[in-house]
């Protein structure tokens, strides 16, 4: 019993020492939402098309933002009334965009990406059309 009591005390002290850095975290809550994350699927598709149209002048940051937005497409599309088949197509488009954007200098790849983005824009139009809550279309012009 004596030995186990010592163990309890040792654990408590070690815990206290390691947890000295644990301050009460009550001021800041929330998940950081990146500034370039679009508010809706419609805006994301619009943003990707606009960014793609100036891809020749991309900086590393522009490229990264394009990748980020392409990665968010499935999540944003899940916030629409798109059917399962349409959503799965969005997911495929997202994966292809992410895979091919590295090789955008290649003419064939560029043509493919342009076609995919056009298809994405069509799906975004569909999402906006079937949107029973009118949450997809921007209330004010997009910053992009």
């Amino acid at each position: 019993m004596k030995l186990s009591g010592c163990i309890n005390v040792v654990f408590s002290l070690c815990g206290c020492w390691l947890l000295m850095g644990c301050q009460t975290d009550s001021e800041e809550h929330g998940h950081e939402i990146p500034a370039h994350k679009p508010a809706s699927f419609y805006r994301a598709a619009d943003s990707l098309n606009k960014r793609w149209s100036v891809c020749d002048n991309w900086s590393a940051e522009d490229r990264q933002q394009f990748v980020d937005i392409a990665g968010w497409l499935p999540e944003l599309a899940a916030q629409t009334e798109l059917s399962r088949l349409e959503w799965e197509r969005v997911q495929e488009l997202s994966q292809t965009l992410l895979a091919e954007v590295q090789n955008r200098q290649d003419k064939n790849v560029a043509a493919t990406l342009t076609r995919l983005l056009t298809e994405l824009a069509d799906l975004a139009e569909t999402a906006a059309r079937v949107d029973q809550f009118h949450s997809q279309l921007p209330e004010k012009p997009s910053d992009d």
Partner: protein
Amino acid sequence: MIEHQFWGAVLRVMQAVAQASPFILTGLIITAVFRRLLGQANVRYLFGEGTRRSLPQAWAMGMLLPVCSLGVIPIVREMKRAGLSGGTILAFGLTAPLFNPLSVLYGLTLSEPFTIFAFMLASLVVVTCIGLLFDYCFPNSTHAEAEPAPVQWGIKRVLAVLGTMGRECWSRSTLYMLVGLSGLIVLSVVLPKASFQSSVNADNPWAPLLMTFVAVPAYATPMLAMSQLGSMFQHGNSVGAAFALLILGAGLNFGIILWMFQAYGGKRALAWMGILLGVVLGLGYTLEKPLTPTDIEVANHTHAFDVYCCPYAGNESRLGEETWRAFRNDLRPEESISLYALLAAFLLGLGWLLLERRYDLERWLSSIPEEHARGVKLDFVLPNWILGATAIVALFIMSIAMCFAYYPPPGECLDEMYIVKGEVLSSALSQNYAHALHWLPVWEDWNRRLQVGVYLRKGRLSEYHRMKARVVQNELELLEHAMEDDERDEIRQLTTGLARAQLRLSRAYREEL
């Protein structure tokens, strides 16, 4: 401040007792079946004692039996009485509280099911390595104690099992369980409210070590540990810390450590603890990079460990009433029933002990019924070991069958979510945040059960359905933070978004499965 810490510790211990009660009850049943029906020789056979497969077999048994780190205490004590080796007992004692069919299913529907498989295999590595080392270093750890005379058939067998359960309640097992709960008091006093929200972020190299120090005194049921793991993956926390939480938080507590010291002596117990901590930390740091999910947005905090911190910030009043209210609110129906059953077991045990003072119950239990001795009865008597084996198999089957009850079909989950949605959204909008914050985890729980229920029945869960549930989960978290910060405009916006997300989720799971 001391008053807040006192009531905070009281609440944490009460919550833990309630959560542990179904598992303690299961542990008592298994112990009684081992002692009274299976017998020591069959228990040794069940765990493959003396063979090379004893450690993996103990791991597999632990995976199937639904007990927690408190409920496992009477079982490991019984295993020691049966003369099993220290390595096998500790392998079972460490694995059984980590996984059961309910928690494994829950884990498999997380965004990274591969991680759960990796953790399961890593736990096998941990228990096998430690068991082999322990048995190699301390070969003479087996010592079978005297076995009670075999119980005769009829009602005596039932009474023997019930009586053993009751007696075990008044044994040292309960003392070890209470010591196990003392870790929660330590944590509640040491950790202020919400103080562990950003301590185990993935970019903190000390996260696995820090978690080790918190996880050893902490008590977590298998389901709680798995849901905390899910939350850690979702928030992009340290995978090494998650592994340490699973093995040490769910698998270990002060009570088990104390039992080890008393059963095997300080030297062996310290060696085992040292090897365990070394292997867990080593594996934790090894798994950190390869298993870190890449497709999630890293959050700078998690609420998963709020349950280990003091529940009170220091500005609350009428703490006694508040503690009772919080306990009643968190109490689930199955916990409530188990608490009554546990109380009944304690009373039965007390009665049994009092009767034993006047009568020789052991002799009565082991005496052959008179009518059979006279040769009047012609019916066939099943041996005790068949009944014992049947009881253990029934427990396995029940723990799998319970999955279907705990994770109901999508329609039932969605009906429950519909009710909970009303509670959360209406109270959030009317600024009754305490009520909304009470119901919000219930909504999250049903959201998880919905996914697991589909996975259980269909054998898979599509990315589409996962994503619909993830959207609801994300919105719930945002609403929780908005309420904590009293952001009223944001709350209005989020309640609208959440109602829509729930509607889409409902449509997806009802019409597009």
